[in-house]
């Protein structure tokens, strides 16, 4: 069954290992940090500047999960909403390398480092995406490797190479 939502988007066959996706940028404001922290990460060092200064973070910084969620948002806008994505499988090696401080602007690149067919589901491929998220000074703040499902345009095509 073809999916009318994604039929005109890029499919598995249209991607190649080595493609680099340039993300947009997001400025992380004090208000964004506190709003997110109140809902998902209410440690004093994400809510209060005084407590933040005394913490290991050294100042008001975003929750690592906020940095991750904003990074995903940038990937959806630049890539996942333009491919026949069938959902995320998970991620590995998420590293928070430096805090994202209030007023920082994050951006970066995502590189396709793997592409393989799913053995048990010929209609899907798995695209592996390596994130390099940086701040406005070019310093790396977060990295991770995400695995996402993508529809195969021709599921009857033989599965070759390293299938998962």
């Amino acid at each position, binding site marked *: 069954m073809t999916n009318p*939502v994604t039929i005109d988007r890029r499919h598995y066959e249209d991607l190649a290992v080595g493609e680099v996706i340039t993300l947009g940028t997001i400025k992380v404001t004090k208000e964004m940090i506190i709003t997110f922290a109140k809902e998902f*990460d209410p440690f004093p060092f994400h809510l209060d500047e005084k407590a933040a200064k005394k913490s290991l973070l050294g100042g008001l910084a975003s929750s690592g999960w906020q940095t991750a969620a904003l990074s995903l948002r940038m990937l959806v806008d630049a890539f996942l909403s333009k491919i026949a994505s069938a959902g995320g499988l998970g*991620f*590995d090696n998420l590293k928070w390398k430096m805090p994202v401080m209030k007023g920082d602007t994050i951006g970066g690149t995502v590189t396709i480092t793997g592409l393989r067919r799913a053995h048990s589901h010929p209609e899907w491929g798995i695209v592996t995406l390596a994130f390099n998220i940086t701040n406005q000074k070019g310093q790396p703040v977060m990295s991770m490797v995400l695995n996402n499902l993508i529809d195969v345009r021709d599921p009857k095509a033989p599965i070759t190479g390293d299938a998962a």
Partner: protein
Amino acid sequence: MTRWFEDITENETFPLGDYTFTEAEIIRFGKLYDPQYFHIDPDKAKFSHFGGPIASGWHTVCVGHRKMVDALFAEEERLRVIGQEPGVSGPSPGVNSMVFKAPVRPSDTVTYEMIVTSKRRSNSIPGWGLLFYRLNATNQHGDMVYSAEIVGFSKLRDYKPTPLQKLTIWAAQLPVIGKLLRR
């Protein structure tokens, strides 16, 4: 963990409670952080292999983190009530793996639990220990929603720094912390 590093037992399981995801919450989170059609548009989501809207995996993970923070605060309160000084937890350096399994649909209830699988003293930040823990999320049918291996910092109680180490601790609070945080 809001218990001193020394008081945390390996393989101890902490129930974190549950959370019911409404369609409105799923769509609100999706529009902010993961605006793919199967998270934000119930009509279009019918065409996906999920057959309807599902929560972003990151939504279920962020809620799981909140449940963990709430449990830490509750443990802190429990210790205070029995007259003990609670420990101090620090930021997390990262997540080794996160596997999304069963999708979370509107009205699903997800139950979270945390298991400290191992711990060791930090090599890079004196006075702190590292906790390695697993966070499991399960739906009301008993299906695994996600399973994660996460790392966190926990302060040592029985730590007497030398003057040089005191200087290092001070330096670790400067914005160059990233390099020091690397395990």
